[in-house]
C-alpha cells in the first residue's frame, strides 16, 4: 500500500512548475490527503517547505538522491 494518494511527477520541470503542479494536485484531495512529489529541480528543496508553510500543508518527508527529490506532503485543513 502506498503512503500517498496522488503522484506529482515534476521531473524535468523547472521552478515554479513543480510547485504549481503540486498546488493543482492538492485541490483535488480532501484534508489529510497526501501527494508524492518527484522533482529534479534543486529549487524544490527550499520551495516545497515554503509552499507548505504558506498553505498550511504538512511536509511529511523529503529525500534526495543526487539530482532527484521525493517528498510526501499532507494537505492541511
Amino acid at each position, binding site marked *: 500500500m502506498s503512503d500517498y494518494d496522488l503522484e506529482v511527477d515534476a521531473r524535468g520541470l523547472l*521552478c515554479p512548475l513543480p510547485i*504549481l503542479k503540486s498546488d493543482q494536485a492538492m485541490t483535488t484531495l480532501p484534508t489529510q490527503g497526501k501527494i508524492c512529489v518527484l522533482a529534479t*529541480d534543486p529549487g524544490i528543496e*527550499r520551495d516545497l517547505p*515554503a509552499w507548505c508553510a504558506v498553505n498550511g500543508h504538512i511536509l511529511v518527508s523529503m529525500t534526495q538522491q543526487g539530482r532527484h527529490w521525493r517528498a510526501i506532503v499532507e494537505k492541511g485543513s
Partner: protein
Amino acid sequence: MTHASIEKTGVIRALGLLSGGLDSTLAARLLLEQGIEVGCVNFHTGFCIQSHTSAIRNPKPGAPPPRHDALHAAQSLGVKLHMVDISSDYVRIVTDPKHGYGKNLNPCLDCKIFMVAKAWAMAKELGYHFIFSGEVLGQRPMSQRRDTFPVIDREAGVKGWLLRPLTALRMPETEPEKMGWVDRSRLEGFNGRGRKPQMALAKKLAITDYPSPAGGCCFLTDENYTRKLRDLWAYRNNRDYSMEDILLLKAGRHIRPAPHFKLMIGRDQSENLFLSGFRKGRMTIQTKNTPGPLTLVEGEITAAEDRLLACRIAARYSKGKDLPTVQLTVDDGNVTEVVEVTPLPAHELPDHWHV
C-alpha cells in the same frame, strides 16, 4: 465581496502583485502595518529568470539551492500566495505587444497591463477590495513612468483601484484612500531608480532577507536570450513558440550552421541532464569513446553532409577535440548509429554560427 462586507466585518482585503523582490514585499508590508488583510498573486509567464539558470547549470560549490522569491516573501510576510500559470495566454503579449518592446524583446507595458487586469479579475472573484503593486515612479524605463501608470490603470480597467504604496504620495489619491480604507499618510513617495529609500524602509521594518535587485526578473530583458528567440522566429517564419521552445533557449550553446538546423550543446553535466529531457522528436548526438556533451539537433537534417557537419561540431565540444577522430552515437529517433569523425577545428566554426 462587496463594500458592504467591510461594514459588516470591518476587514479590508487587498490583493498584491508579488514578485518577491524588495519593492513588492515592502508594498505588502506597508498595508499589513495598517491592519489590512493582504493576499498576493504571482504569475508564471515561462520567462522567469529567477533560479532557472542556477537550476539548469551545475551548482557553484557552497551556493544555496535556488528558490522562488515570491513564495519565500509570502512566507516571511505570513500571507496567502496565489501562484498562477499564465504562460499560454502570455504568448500573444510576447509575439504581438500593442505598446511594443523595450531594449530587447521585453513587452513590459503590455505585460504589466495584462498582469494587473488578471489580478483585478482575481481580486473581484476572491473577494479582495482593491489591488496593489510595488511599482515606483521612474524606476523602470518602460512601465514605471508618470505617463505609463495611467495607461496601465486605464487599459487594465482598474482605474482608481490599483494602489502603489511605495510611490502613492506622488500619485493622485486612489479609491481605497478616498474611502478611508488606507491611511495615505502612512504610504511613501519614492521616486526614481535609486534603492536607498527602499533599503532604509526595509531596515526600519526589519526585512533583511530579500533578493538582490540586480539582474532583472525576465529573460525577455536579456540580450543573449532574446537573440536566440529572434533567431527561432526568423528561421521558423512565424513568431509563435511553445513552452519547450522557450525552455530550450535557456540552456546550452546554440549553434546554427545552416538555416534549416541548429545544434544545442550542453555546457556541463547538469545542462546535459536538462537537455536529455528534450530528446523526443529530435536527433541526438553523444560522444562514445571520450567524455563530451549531449547535442540536440533542432530541425531536419537528412543530407549526409549536414549530419557530418553536426557530428564534427559536437565532437569539437568534447574532451576529444584535439584527437584525430572521435566516435559519436547518433540517434534520430528511429535508427541509432555510431560514426567516427574529425572534430571541427576552431577556425572552421565562424562566429556568426553562434546564436
